[in-house]
């Protein structure tokens, strides 16, 4: 496997990239002087991929909710025992996560990087599912689901997504439900595994004080030499209307003060690549310009005691969906929402401020740069963006190309109060 080297003079970083004959994309980001080395091996397969057509088949396969996450748990089991034991031998810290769109396995270590890399590549390629070990996991994941049932931040966010979407599977909890995971058996797990854990649907990203060519060698000797998929895995998503499903959703939990998440559904979706990256950056700039810490809206809400330091804003840009979201704790979430709408209307009348645009652009640059401090953060972000056909090495150029006009246009299109949802978690009454 040959590696291409690319140096970014502004970031002062070099990225190596190669494609293994199986179709696996491999990346190395050397970080001189770092104690920790990190590797993340991920598949473009998340909780939203529960309906799909396997390459070479004609029929749609539909599987129970929560299966991608279940698979993630089960992959750590081997016939000889638990994979953690093998990482532990070298002191490595191993983990995994499942998101809406990705499942990834990772480790960080300060010694024996290549031994750990071999373990990672091997175990992810070797599933071992039995009826007994599937059943055992149902108890553990059941407790994971219970834990999230009590987590108000998690609940308020997932209720928000449920209200935002009519049919798109992003409205469903990543772990599924106790009921849905009870339908999982080893045959379904193998079918999902063989569909989505094909190297050509996967990425290996590594970072640290490591040698690119040595990583390539280990990939050559550990990745099975299968043929890349000749056709794409067809992911079947239901038709999603442009409107929101519900404008408001509420739940009661044992909390001291209401928590809320509110935001706007993105209707401009269906693409990845640089175009998506550009939309992502622009939307974040607009959000900061409307309700970032230096805005009059933020200051006024804070001074009225309507928001506190827990207030946060974010934008999610995926190929098949997108939304901006803001929230935190508030004694009166409805009033916060109303004031946000009023401010958007005022800004539509009076226009956005160009000086603020320039200042916020600086913030966005600083934030992007800072993530290169952490081998984990930068690798995870590279991986998730690569699955959307974006390359973060293009970030600075795209960022530079953004004009005040782009921002004004996005402000008018995306921040539409008709496409807004408010989700609230309140204390129990009495």
């Amino acid at each position, binding site marked *: 496997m040959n590696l291409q080297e690319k140096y970014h003079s502004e970031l002062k970083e070099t990225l190596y990239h190669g494609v293994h004959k199986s179709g696996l994309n491999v990346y190395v980001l050397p970080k001189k002087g770092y104690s*920790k080395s990190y590797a993340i091996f991920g598949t473009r397969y998340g909780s939203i991929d529960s309906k799909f057509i396997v390459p070479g088949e004609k029929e749609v396969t539909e599987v129970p909710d929560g299966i991608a996450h279940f698979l993630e748990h089960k992959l750590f089991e081997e016939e000889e025992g*638990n994979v953690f034991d093998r990482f532990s031998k070298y002191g490595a*810290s191993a983990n995994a996560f499942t998101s809406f769109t990705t499942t990834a396995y990772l480790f960080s270590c300060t010694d024996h990087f290549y031994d750990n890399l071999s373990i990672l590549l091997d175990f992810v390629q070797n599933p071992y599912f039995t009826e007994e070990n599937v059943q055992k996991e149902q108890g*553990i994941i059941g407790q994971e689901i*219970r834990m999230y049932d009590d987590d108000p931040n998690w609940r308020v966010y997932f209720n928000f997504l449920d209200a935002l979407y009519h049919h798109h599977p992003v409205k469903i909890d990543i772990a599924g439900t106790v009921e849905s995971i009870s339908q999982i058996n080893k045959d379904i797990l193998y079918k999902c595994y063989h569909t989505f854990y094909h190297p050509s649907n996967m990425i290996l990203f590594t970072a640290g004080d490591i040698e690119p060519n040595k990583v390539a060698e280990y990939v050559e000797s550990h990745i099975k030499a299968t043929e890349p998929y000749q056709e794409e895995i067809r992911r079947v998503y239901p038709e999603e209307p442009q409107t929101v499903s519900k404008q408001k959703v509420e739940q009661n*939990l044992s909390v001291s003060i209401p928590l809320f998440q509110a935001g706007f559904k993105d209707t401009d979706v269906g693409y990845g690549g640089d175009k998506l990256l550009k939309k992502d950056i622009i939307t974040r700039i607009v959000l900061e310009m409307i309700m970032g810490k230096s805005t009059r809206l933020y200051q006024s809400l*804070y001074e009225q005691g309507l928001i506190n330091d827990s207030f946060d804003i974010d934008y999610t840009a995926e190929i098949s969906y997108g939304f901006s979201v803001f929230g935190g704790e508030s004694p009166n979430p409805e009033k916060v929402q109303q004031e946000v709408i009023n401010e958007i209307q005022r800004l539509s009348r009076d226009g956005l401020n160009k000086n603020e645009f320039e200042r916020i652009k600086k913030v966005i640059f600083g934030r992007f740069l*800072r993530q290169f*401090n952490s081998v984990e953060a930068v690798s995870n972000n590279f991986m998730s963006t690569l699955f959307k056909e974006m390359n973060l090495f293009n970030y600075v150029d795209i960022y530079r190309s953004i004009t005040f006009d782009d921002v004004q246009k996005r402000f008018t299109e995306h921040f539409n109060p008709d496409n807004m949802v408010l989700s609230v978690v309140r204390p129990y009454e009495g």
Partner: protein
Amino acid sequence: MGGFNKTNITKGIHLYYIPTDKFKTFTVSIYIHQPLNKENATKNALLPQVLKRGSIDFPTSQDIARYLEELYGAVFDCGIVKKGENQIIRFNFETIEDTYVDQGEGLLQKTMKLAKQIVFEPLIENERFKKEYVEQEKQNLKNQIEGLINNKMSYAVERCYQEMCSNENFGIYELGSVEDLNTIDEKILYEHYLTVIHNSPIDIFVTGSISEDKVKQMVQNLFHITMDSNPVYPTTEIVSQVGEVKKVYEPMKVAQGKLSLGFRTKIAPTDKEYYPLVIFNGLFGGGPHSKLFNNVREKLSLAYYVFSRLEKFKGLMVVSSGIEPENYQKAFDEIMFQFEEIKKGNITDAEFDATINSAVNSIRSLADTAFYMEDYYLSQLVGGTNDDFEDLISKLSSVTKEDVVAVAQNIQLDTVYFLSNKEA
């Protein structure tokens, strides 16, 4: 790697400079050490909240926010860190290095100056803080104190400590209490501020790529505070007397029961037993190689999370887990069974080696995050030890199974706390 340079700036104020060129940023932090006690805990917790609202040159939070944005989104955060019975008021800043922006902007100098202004040049009206700010931040702090309940996992650990140490200063919540908040106004808080600033050890940490002379000069030019006395670090009392096990049940509408077990280790960070204790904790519940993970979770499927954690300054250890309420007894018995296993010396070589290697790995990993390095050294100062990363690694690596079994004999269960929707 992993050393720092210490400089005395003026009586009571020290600079700790950690040189490194691998990051794209500088960090600047100010830590003010206060003893944790009922009288001052709430006032100490309120101080950073009020100080962050405005200084003489930046009188509103909007002014501060705008300035931080001009500095390429420099990060500013403040609050409280509790280490034993030491309530530390913290201010943390991070700014990118000048080489990544077009012109040499002196971002470190500007950030350090802002830090100094926020902490030492607050906005004052008639010998007191601005009333509006104090009132708003009292409300915010009240919400924060009451908001502990929103995160059930940390709530259950904190409540266990509170019950366990109800007669010790450690039992005081790091953010104080709602009841004490009502007694504070802008005048009382300002007077308290003056006492704190002139009588507390203050540590300034800087990390990044800059020459030691330059950073020393920068700090010396900015910070010249006159101390009233030669301040010393607060100390923590370690309790060795354990009576009958205290059992606390707290009912709440929750889906999952939260079980916390509070233990007394009776070991201070300066004791030689501290190093075997770290290994004991790793073996017991410090990660996926531990006895708790492999038995409570993997073997019995009782929990998704179960871990043990040391509070090293106070000589405590807590086990925390989320379980089905009806599995209370099963989970409790298994946790205690695994504890007994270590006491009996039933430790495999694989478990033991994995624990040592994992401890070494986490210590070396600290060097990749500036704020973790700061926290590590801060803990050395507070704990009265002087181990750099390699010292600690070599001390932990020489711990034997026998050492671990020996420290385990003295560790005692003190309090069992259970948060659940039904009585156990």
